């Protein structure tokens, strides 16, 4: 029986705690009285995921017919699937997407559907490479669809590839993939690693253009998204829901398939990462020391390739299919079953270590903007109810934060970091002054469409993701980061955690409450 999440009160007998530090680790002692929030242990997986998928497709939830009854010869079927940003790290084969897409394709073949196109719902993310597509969909699907051009990737900048479906009642443009808009059925295949994803957000971000995205990917919306993991208190999700409902009202029929994963995040050699420190056995301690010491002696580039080579042993814990909203409610229930941890009250200081990977640096470099987004955008938002850290509190982040960018994946990030953040870190100011120029820059558009670059506007979205935290926090301190890069982000650098706590005392006083978010594996703090 997997144990639920746990909040540890640190005392003098508590061993040093593991902090992520990019592609390295640090063991740190927290003052007695601090709290450590641990994720729940992995739930038992579905015993037969393929059977569960078939069952879900045949027994849909909400106002939806079984998938086979929606399929007929001569129809246009588009199967959208989540892109490289999910799950994290990429999961061991077979990926959930492969299992689900194969099941859908089997049913489509049985029904005699010939016009089938697969569409990577990458929104304004970078395109996926062939190995990444093969990993997500499996070789059989890839080899059946890619050669004939029926395995496609969404191109938000292809004027002929998007269709404007009008505006929502709130005036939001709805512009999505023309192929999807003109299909008889859109099947969306999702992996829900976090509560933020899925539901109407799948289509309203995954196959939507900048013209549409800018209505919810903006500073005001993100400042009123509390949190990204709680769609019922999220302005971003409210907008996505309006857009999703408008898509449905426009006659686009959507059959949503969502899956959840357990928290079985790391392979055996990194088993200590998923354990609570006081339960480490001799083997775990030896393993930690060996891994940590060798990583500290390994050049950054090799460290990166070691970590980016990790395939997570995630297992499917649920699959639900049918009408978007009903499906997503079930998904959230299953996800909460795995990730929710009840936490009593807020804290003055929240500490966290940012790991090697986030949604936008799979097989890439976690640049300083992604460090900011990972900590203030994602980890800060891993809450329901109230933020873990109180308003005016301090966030202490562990990460080396190198001034280093992937030139192919993140070209506009470099300019954003060098030029925009050099001028201002105020999300509202940089949104007003710079966003449009980046979003419409012909070079970024060219690289997004033809290379493997994130869209020109993407670094802005990373910064907007931090907007709620930036508004809420009294300070951000980065331990062990490149001082110049940290300052460029508008944060303060510290050499050690002790220094950081001392610096934080200027903001929160001499006797602050401290909590440490022990993730990943991921959790959602249900702060009462």
């Amino acid at each position, binding site marked *: 029986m997997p144990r639920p999440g746990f909040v540890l009160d640190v005392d003098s007998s508590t061993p040093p705690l593991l902090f992520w530090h990019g592609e390295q680790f640090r063991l740190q002692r927290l003052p007695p009285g601090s709290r450590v929030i641990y994720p729940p242990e992995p739930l038992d997986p579905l015993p037969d995921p393929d059977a569960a998928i078939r069952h879900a497709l045949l027994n849909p939830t909400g106002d939806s017919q079984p998938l086979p009854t929606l399929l007929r010869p001569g129809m246009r079927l588009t199967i959208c699937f989540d892109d490289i940003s999910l799950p994290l790290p990429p999961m061991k084969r077979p990926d959930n997407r492969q299992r689900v897409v194969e099941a859908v394709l089997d049913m489509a073949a049985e029904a005699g559907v010939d016009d089938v196109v697969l569409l990577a719902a990458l929104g304004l993310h970078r395109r996926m490479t062939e190995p990444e597509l093969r990993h997500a969909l499996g070789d059989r699907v890839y080899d059946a669809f890619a050669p004939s051009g029926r395995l496609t990737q969404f191109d938000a900048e292809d004027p002929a590839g998007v269709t404007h479906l009008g505006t929502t009642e709130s005036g939001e443009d709805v512009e999505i993939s023309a192929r999807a808009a003109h299909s008889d059925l859109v099947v969306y295949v999702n992996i829900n690693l976090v509560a933020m994803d899925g539901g109407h957000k799948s289509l309203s971000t995954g196959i939507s253009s900048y013209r549409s995205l800018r209505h919810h990917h903006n500073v005001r919306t993100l400042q009123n998204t509390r949190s990204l993991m709680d769609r019922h208190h999220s302005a971003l999700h409210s907008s996505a829901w309006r857009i999703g409902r408008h898509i449905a009202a426009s006659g686009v029929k959507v059959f949503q398939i969502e899956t959840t994963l357990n928290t079985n995040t790391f392979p055996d050699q990194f088993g200590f990462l998923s354990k609570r420190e006081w339960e480490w056995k001799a083997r775990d301690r030896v393993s930690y020391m060996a891994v940590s010491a060798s990583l500290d002696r390994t050049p950054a580039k090799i460290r990166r390739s070691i970590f980016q080579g990790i395939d997570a042993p995630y297992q499917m814990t649920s699959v639900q299919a049918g009408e978007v909203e009903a499906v997503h409610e079930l998904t959230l229930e299953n996800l909460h079953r795995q990730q929710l941890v009840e936490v009593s009250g807020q804290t003055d200081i929240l500490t966290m270590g940012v790991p090697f990977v986030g949604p936008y640096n799979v097989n890439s470099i976690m640049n300083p903007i992604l460090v900011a987004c990972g900590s203030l955008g994602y980890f800060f938002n891993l809450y329901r109810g109230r933020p873990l850290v109180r308003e005016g509190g301090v966030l202490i982040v562990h990460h080396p934060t190198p001034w280093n960018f992937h030139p192919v994946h993140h070209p506009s990030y*470099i*300019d954003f970091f*060098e*030029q925009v953040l050099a001028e201002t870190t105020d999300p509202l100011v940089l949104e007003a002054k710079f966003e449009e*120029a*980046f979003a419409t*820059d*012909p*070079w970024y558009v*060219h690289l997004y469409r033809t290379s493997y670059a994130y869209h020109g506007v993407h670094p802005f979205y990373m910064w907007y993701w931090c907007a709620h935290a930036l508004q809420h926090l009294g300070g951000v301190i980065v331990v062990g980061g490149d001082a110049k890069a940290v300052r460029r982000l508008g944060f303060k650098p510290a050499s050690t955690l002790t220094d950081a706590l001392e610096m934080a005392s200027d903001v929160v006083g001499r006797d602050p409450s401290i909590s440490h978010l022990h993730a990943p594996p991921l959790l959602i703090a249900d702060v009462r």
Partner: protein
Amino acid sequence: MVERSVARFAAARVSSRLAPLRLDTARDEPKQPGPGWQRVRPVLAGICGSDLATVDGRSSRWFEPIVSFPFVPGHEVVGLLDDGRRVVVEPVLKCATRAVTPACGMCAAGRTNLCERIAFGDLEPGLQTGYCTDTGGGWSEAMVAHDSQLHPVPDAMTDEAAVMVEPAACAVHAARQGPSGATGTAAVIGAGTLGLLTVAALRRSAAPPRLLVAAAKHPHQRHLVAELGADEVCAPGELERVLRRATRSLAAGRQLTGGVAAVFDCVGSAASLAQALRVAAPGGTIVLVGMPGPTLVDLTPLWQREVTLRGAYAYERADFEAAFGLVAEADLGRLVSARYPLERYRHALDHAAAAGRRASVKVAFAPGKDH
């Protein structure tokens, strides 16, 4: 005083520390070469990049026939005449100064900076005061200047502002060498004195660029160059990316497909010129403002993109007069960061050579002042 040492030319090939020129102290005041000449007692005399290149032997040997040894450096001069009037010296030793008649074609056309007689006439060779053995130079307690070189200083103008007039005139002249009607985009590489002044001159020119981007190495330079009128300021290594974005150009490798209409290279090194060639738009113009030396640069982009490379040396009289206005309007006297007595010339030269790193702009001698 700078003297030539043949042995040191050979030694300089072995080590650049062994400069081919020798600094010494001049004992005698220069004699007045003839009628129309005045004694000038320098109040402030700036140290320019070209002076530093001369002193440490980095200057091109191109100058050999157009200077005369030994000479006293210093061509950015504000000083006092014997009658007490305060003047700025316009140092170009043109036909009028040399009593050459008839004047050469360039002087006749008013383009005195391009005078064809700078090695002839009544004076020993010397393209400017500060490079001619007959005139002396500003790094001294007394020098001589011809009436044709003198510009009275308004009473309201400080000595610091007045000493900036000569370099400001260079900038005014450089700004005029860009494409006519420079309403397009422009970049300035380098934010030492010349770079800062060029930005100030471009911003205040009759047809200022629509977008002016400056590359500056040091924090105080970035602050100043923005204050003087650059729309965007970046580190030198960021210039290509900033201009690509600013001009909405595409890029092929490190080459921009577009670029800026005018690039003002205020550094004059191989690296800065190569960068200027990378960021100049097809058909654009590069104005070489900083004094170059022997330079190895791939000129293929110049050829393939039909870029114009042109020099901007010194100024014409009208530039000089306009510079007074520029100095006053942009408050350029504040750029004088340090003043040294003559006897501390080694400290002064060290300071000037490291001005950027030491958060300074213009370093000047203040002969005869009580320090």
